[in-house]
């Protein structure tokens, strides 16, 4: 019989789990990491192919991954299968839950956009009266953001307004293209700042837990990792009532196993960590585990053409480059239509304009494609979704996954706040584009379904009051001092910003706190 008790059990290997593993093992703590899926090896598991060699010519395999809009035939096998790990929702309010269970999780495939939250997010309630403030501020997290930005080699410019704090960047000094400069000038009358994009460059083309965090943890000799371990539930010490490990089942063989640890760190991703807490009936004295599910609205946007770049006249001086328009609504002025705000991802491209932008076909369409080639300028929204108690997840006891584990039922919907925000983004985007002399080709006001952004956060929100929050400011359970949740579940508000940098910074801060507490034998 195995009597080994690890110091810390880390469930999940993505950005949050990888950072916890790195920090804790570098502090001398013995960690066991469990990941639900296998290791992906691009040399063994992937091959460059043209679409005509695939069964469906590149179309998403019919009936699979219906809620993963990002899936194609090329990448269909990297996402979690919806039949294997289902979830339920009311058909009237669909939810797109996009998951990766490969070792490294979604950190293998993220978009690399890297922004800090500002105090307009951390102290949102103090600013506009809605929701709750975080128990921390930008100043508390800033040192961790800087260290994360260094690890992930974030490039950007020191051009951020207060709502998009600057960071520890590899400076992007590329000149703006002329089309971008025209857009910036036209945006001034809307008080719209236009800034350089901020992206994690990582190393060797990847900015992931598997190449930036886990190798450091493995080098300490203190990390033991197990793949294909589907955690069923946390176990609890009968005498102390504290979590002391977990039951898991081998994904392939179905062998039932258990492990013991002094501390449990959940890093399985917002909704999987929450599902585990709910199935384990642990850490929920507040009744808020599962509540305040948030993400960001995506999908609304505007596609334009720069007339001067048409008919073969596009140049690298005129076209090219990307920009971020950080939230500019409800900063110094107040909108009547919605609270908080949205950002716009702006792209000027010397490539093709998509055929969907022309209401024609055949030879006439081909003529348009030739005329407009090289003139594409488009923008898409990233908007903050307000945290509402009624937007939540709970366990559906009537349905289980392929290993018999009860699934999540997701009950969430966008409200007028989000829809009005999307409408404003498209109206303002179109107006600025036209003021810059661009032709608007197509627009979309309707956001994609909740979850599409793959930025789900909340459901174990942090706060100072145990009655109104699940975790304290260290991502530590109010109920169990040896239980931490270090992924996006801890967010008190969503912000418009991609959550990755914040997840990494919070995980680093929580893990260093945990390491300190363990060294003092407080845990």
């Amino acid at each position: 019989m195995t009597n080994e008790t690890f110091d810390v059990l880390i469930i999940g290997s993505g950005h949050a789990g990888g950072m916890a593993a790195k920090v804790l093992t570098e502090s001398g703590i013995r960690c066991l990491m469990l990941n639900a899926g296998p290791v992906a090896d691009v040399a063994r598991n992937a091959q460059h192919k043209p679409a005509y060699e695939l069964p469906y010519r590149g179309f998403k395999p019919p009936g699979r991954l219906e809620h993963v809009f990002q899936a194609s035939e090329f990448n269909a096998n990297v996402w979690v299968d919806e039949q294997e790990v289902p979830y339920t929702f009311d058909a009237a309010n669909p939810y797109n839950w996009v998951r990766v269970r490969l070792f490294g999780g979604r950190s293998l495939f993220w978009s690399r956009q890297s922004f800090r939250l500002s105090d307009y997010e951390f102290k949102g309630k103090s600013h506009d009266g809605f929701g709750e403030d975080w128990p921390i501020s930008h100043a508390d997290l800033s040192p961790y953001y800087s260290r994360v930005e260094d690890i992930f080699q974030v490039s950007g410019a020191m051009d951020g307004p207060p709502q998009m704090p600057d960071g520890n960047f590899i400076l992007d000094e590329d000149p703006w293209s002329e089309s971008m400069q025209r857009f910036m000038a036209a945006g001034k009358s809307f008080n719209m700042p236009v800034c350089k994009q901020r992206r994690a460059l990582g190393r060797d083309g990847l900015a992931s837990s598997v190449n930036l965090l886990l190798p450091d943890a493995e080098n300490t000799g203190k990390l033991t990792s197990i793949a294909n371990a589907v955690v069923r539930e946390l176990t609890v010490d009968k005498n102390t009532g504290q979590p002391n490990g977990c039951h898991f089942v081998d994904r392939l063989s179905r062998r039932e196993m258990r492990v013991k640890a002094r501390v449990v760190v959940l890093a399985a991703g917002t909704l999987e960590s929450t599902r585990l807490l709910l199935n384990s009936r642990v850490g929920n004295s507040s009744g808020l585990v599962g509540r305040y599910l948030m993400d960001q609205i995506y999908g609304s946007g505007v596609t334009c053409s720069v007339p001067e770049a048409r008919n073969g006249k596009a140049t690298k001086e005129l076209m090219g480059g990307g920009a971020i328009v950080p939230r500019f609504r409800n900063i110094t002025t107040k909108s009547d239509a919605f609270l908080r705000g949205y950002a716009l991802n702006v792209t000027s491209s010397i490539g093709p304009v998509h055929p969907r932008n022309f209401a024609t076909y055949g030879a006439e369409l081909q003529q348009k494609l030739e005329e407009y080639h090289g003139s594409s300028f488009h923008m898409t929204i990233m908007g903050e979704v307000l945290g509402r108690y009624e937007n939540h997840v709970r366990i559906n006891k009537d349905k289980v996954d392929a290993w018999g584990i009860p699934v999540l039922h997701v009950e969430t919907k966008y409200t007028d706040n989000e829809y009005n925000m999307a409408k404003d983004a498209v109206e303002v985007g179109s107006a600025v584009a036209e003021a810059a002399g661009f032709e608007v080709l197509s627009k979309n006001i309707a956001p994609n379904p909740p979850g599409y952004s793959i930025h789900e956060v909340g459901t174990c929100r942090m706060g100072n009051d145990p009655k109104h929050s699940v975790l304290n400011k260290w991502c530590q359970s109010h109920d169990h001092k040896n239980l931490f949740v270090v992924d996006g579940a801890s967010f008190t508000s969503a912000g418009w910003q991609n959550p990755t940098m914040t997840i990494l910074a919070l995980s680093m801060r929580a893990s260093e706190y945990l390491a300190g507490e363990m060294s003092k034998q407080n845990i």
Partner: protein
Amino acid sequence: MLRRDFVRAVVSIGFAPRLLLSQQTANPAPPPPAPVPWTLGLNPKTPLPHTEVVDGIAETERRFFTPVQMAVLVRLCDVLLPPIGDKPGALQAETPLFLDFLIGSSPASRKKVYTGGLNWLDSESQKRYKKPFAKLDTMQADAILKPLLRTWMSDHPPTEPHADFINIAHDDIRTATVNSKAWSDVPSGDAQASTEAGLYWSPIEPDIYAGSSDRTRIPARVIAAPKGTHSIPAYPR
């Protein structure tokens, strides 16, 4: 088995790996006596058979659309994406039969968009021109189709009746054609779409027991026949 036969067999098995490795040298030794351990054989030097994609060699069999729907789809494909310059059109790329396969494999909601749309096109053609859509000339087809075209962005096709089908089908017809071998065989100019290509991920350690979400048991293993009833055939040595 006689003792000398047993010894000979043991010696042969002991030498088998060395003998097989010697196949890779310039003067390979003769193959070992049968039976060769079956797991030895395929190795990194084994030549890979060359195969072709099936398109252009074998014809897809219609399985889903009715003959009338198929005829409408063929005409629609030819109108929306005819051959242009050197590039093949949707018909040359065998797009209609490919879509019959794709849509026929799809969930009910997608099937309904297509069957409803194709049926409507044919009935509209009968109403206006007293003939099937498959027999319309280009001007007549344009008169029905062009008013239904819209500009739209990813994941948000038009939702108004009939415009939904026409715009979705146009997008699908283009994708199926551009991603065909026939399209790829002709080089694309700057403003012509190129066949999509990229990193294709195979299933990674697939869970072969995954099926319905309620399945939690491992299927029963096949049980070997009981010893007493199994007779060992004799091979002449």
